[in-house]
């Protein structure tokens, strides 16, 4: 199968879209629509930017959906992983400092900045998926050795990001990584050991936190900060049905800070009330359920299983940390609501991610049949269609 001739390639491009999981795409669209309505109401200028992100995201999604990932993963996963690690190291050495955190890398000559910690998410998930596929766990799950190897894949970027410091993103990565491992299967005694080590070292780690991070944690435990307080007022004043745009004073009069990105969920609450928030939460739940269902259906294919569950964890952790943060039940860590908050990089990454998953699943579906028989089937189909068409022509002539 390594040698593709042109016929095979065109065949691939023609048959693949038929096997796409279109429901997944349909599920995402309402999120994007609601998000863009909210952003437009808060700031029309940002809405135009948002549309550009959607276009770029759609392109990224399409491209990712057609790249035969299962074929190239053996070199792509390690390569992108190492490039991203290098980028993270570069950030550590030559990164641009904004507001005390070294998270950005300037692209020479363009003045644009990128945030490597966003890209590493894909790399880590793909790397884990690739390694797991290569050496799937036994019935009981992975033992200590394999667990340690896979943990290293997660811990290296985690430590680098945590050092930036961007504890929010680092923790999301950590939880997603170990979530995948948990889902795929690791022996219980391994988890027990991890739990013991974690609980012992937690107080030690706390001492290594930055002052502002400690402050955020203590703020969270004590009185809510100004941001959270305004968010609570926004959500609370929305009631069951929400308010008209003009009456949503918390956001329209700028009491709610960063209302288009991290705190957009609070505006959702103010504008569309409890009903609106519940609707969005249900959309997320359905999306996550769908992803876990895919992971379950293709549970023998560790690649799909890892990627699908990885995405489910990513969405689950991101969305819940963001929402819990807004209502004062989690520390303020600057994590966006996935595919809902205004923000380019994060959205495009998710689009690419969905593209990858769509491709993996569609590819798997094609692969379930014999390639040759499938080809003939397609030809037969074409023949039948031709016949029908000519029949229709004849009839119309008559």
């Amino acid at each position: 199968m390594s040698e593709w001739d042109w016929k095979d390639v065109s065949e691939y491009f023609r048959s693949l879209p038929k096997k796409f999981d279109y429901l997944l795409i349909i599920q995402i669209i309402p999120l994007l629509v609601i998000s863009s309505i909210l952003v437009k109401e808060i700031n029309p200028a940002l809405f135009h930017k948002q549309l550009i992100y959607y276009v770029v995201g759609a392109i990224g999604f399409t491209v990712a959906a057609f790249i035969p990932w299962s074929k190239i993963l053996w070199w792509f996963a390690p390569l992108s992983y190492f490039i991203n690690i290098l980028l993270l190291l570069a950030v550590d050495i030559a990164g641009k400092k904004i507001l005390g955190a070294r998270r950005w890398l300037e692209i020479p000559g363009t003045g644009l900045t990128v945030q490597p910690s966003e890209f590493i998410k894909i790399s880590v998930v793909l790397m884990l998926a690739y390694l797991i596929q290569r050496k799937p766990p036994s019935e009981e799950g992975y033992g200590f050795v394999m667990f340690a190897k896979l943990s290293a894949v997660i811990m290296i970027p985690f430590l680098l990001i945590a050092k930036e410091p961007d504890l929010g993103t680092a923790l999301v990565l950590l939880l997603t990584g170990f979530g995948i491992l948990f889902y795929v299967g690791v022996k219980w005694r391994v988890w027990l050991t991890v739990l013991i080590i974690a609980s012992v070292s937690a107080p030690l780690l706390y001492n290594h936190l930055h002052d502002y991070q400690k402050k955020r944690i203590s703020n969270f435990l004590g009185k809510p900060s100004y941001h959270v307080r305004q968010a609570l007022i926004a959500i609370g004043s929305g009631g069951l049905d929400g308010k008209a745009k003009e009456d949503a004073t918390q956001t329209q009069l700028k009491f709610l800070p960063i209302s288009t990105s991290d705190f957009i969920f609070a505006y959702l609450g103010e504008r569309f009330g409890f009903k609106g928030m519940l609707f969005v939460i249900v959309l997320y739940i359905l999306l996550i359920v769908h992803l876990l269902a895919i992971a379950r259906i293709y549970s023998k294919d560790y690649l799909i299983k890892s990627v699908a569950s990885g995405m489910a964890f990513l969405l689950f952790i991101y969305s819940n940390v963001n929402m819990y943060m807004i209502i004062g039940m989690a520390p303020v860590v600057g994590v966006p609501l996935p595919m809902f908050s205004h923000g380019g990089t994060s959205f495009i990454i998710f689009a690419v991610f969905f593209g990858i998953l769509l491709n993996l699943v569609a590819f798997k579906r094609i692969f379930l049949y014999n390639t040759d028989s499938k080809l003939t089937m397609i030809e037969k189909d074409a023949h039948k269609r031709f016949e029908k068409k000519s029949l229709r022509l004849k009839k119309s002539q008559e």
Partner: protein
Amino acid sequence: MRYRLLWFIFILVWGLLVVRLYHISIKSNYYYEKLAKENIERKTYIKPVRGEIFDSKGNYLAVNKLGFSVSIAPHMKKKKLSEVIDLLKSYFPDINKTVMQKVYKRYNSPYNYKFIKVIDFIAYNDMIRYYSQLEPNQYIHIDTETKRYYPFGGYAAHIVGYVGRSNRKENKKDKVVEIVGKTGKSGLELYYNKVLEGELGYVISKVNARNKELKVIKKVEPISNRNIKLNLDMDLQQYIFKILDKRAAVVVVMTVDGKVLAAVSNPSFNPNLFVGGISVKNWRALQNNLGHPFTNKFINAVYPPGSVIKMGVALATSRFGHGVLDEHEFCKGYITIDKSKHKFRCWSRWGHGDVDLRKSIRESCDVYYYDKSLKIGIDNISKTLHQIGLGVKTGIDLPREYRGIIPNKAWKRKRYNLPWYKGETVICAIGQGYDNVTPMQIARYTAFIATGKLPTPMLAKEVAGKKVKPVLKRIWFNPKHFNTIREGMYDVCNDRRGTAYKTMSKLPIIVAGKTGTAQVVSIPQDIKKRVKENDLAYFKKSHAWITTYAPYKHPEYVITVLMEHGGHGGSSAGPIAAKIYKWLYYNGYFKHHPLQKVREELQKLKDIKEAKELGLDTNVSQ
């Protein structure tokens, strides 16, 4: 197993989220709705104009001087700011540049869109010359501003008091004070502060998170100019200051129903010095003045009443000693108590011989009251004196009034934890010892003796357009004794043997009164002959009292004079009271002597000099 655990965690997290959101947006909807409203509504206050104070003739005692304040635009760059400040400095050289810069720095913030007031007050005349030049400048905003001014200065300082910058404690108590930043600090300005300050107006406006005003929701105008009209006559008040010259003294002139026409505490101070903050030099000069110019001596200083208390002791005896007051006493110049050798002496070394009530007052016999007091006891005396206004607050409309002391056994036990001695009873019966009263109390008590009704002294005639009604309290005493006491007081001023005959007898109206000489130091037992008052050092001299009412038959006015360290009441305080009576008379204050008639009388007076002294010469020629 692990899938189930995972689902459990997921559902738990989602469930908790939804429950919490339900709680916030539906259960606490009302609470957060209110907070959201509070966020967007800003209340800005409009300051009321402070009410003014004037006397019964319409003379202004406390006014708001019109002037201007200068504010400059917020968010100016450093260079522009110093340019604007320099410009202002070129027009008003007196202003302090660094203070202005400091004030600007303190109030300038991204949340402030208002002009910042850098000059509190510029007098009308100073500003009006440059107004047309400064007004068009877009960085400068000129506003009208008022400043409290007391046209009569020291003449009414103790009564009117003054206004000053409010402190934190005062701000906490009163919203208006907090907003206006000024409050009455003493006198009527403090007592009637709530009335004078008016009520705040306010504007409720819709603002955004940066405090920028978007829309006015509600506007309420302030309630201003709640004025106070006084019973005071500033002409009289000034006249009294004039005749006192520089002598430390207290004078109270009031009607028998309590309207205070004049209340003088000399020396005084200029309250205008305090309005904009007093200078160190002026403060020291006033502080070091031994005459205590800051003390309002008619209510905030206590003096031993001396002999003027005797009518009160007589009334106590009338009430508590059955028939005791009708008994005569024999004065041999002194008494001794029980087996003690200590002599309680009468002021007259030779004694007054046989003394009845009328004579006891006329000649102010001490021994008579020694004997009476021993018969009824200190507790009964103090009970009666308290009842008729001594040793209790008069209730005058001024703040921080002193109570003074009229002692009894319980008071001494409480204060010193000592038993009461008979010797102290006799001392207290002649207004010495522990006795301490304020001049206002004596004036009030004199009005009571004159009419049988105890008035409450009132400075205010009208408060915010409402007339103040006199408060009178009738207290019953045996009318026979009452009349004899009044006859005694008549004799004091109109009988050759009276202690104030010399000064009080030749007045156009008939006056009754009582003198008092309150010792400041006790006289040792071995000194037989007293040193004459004139020979004593100033601060060892006795205080001189005279308290009077007139006309004798139908009392209208009470005049109480206390000359600090003045010596004898009759000779020192008497002339002052006499001059005031003349002034009142020739200004038509007495009911049955209308102005026209008294003016005619005045013209017939041979002694035009006297008329001039009364300040009436211009009127005479009319």
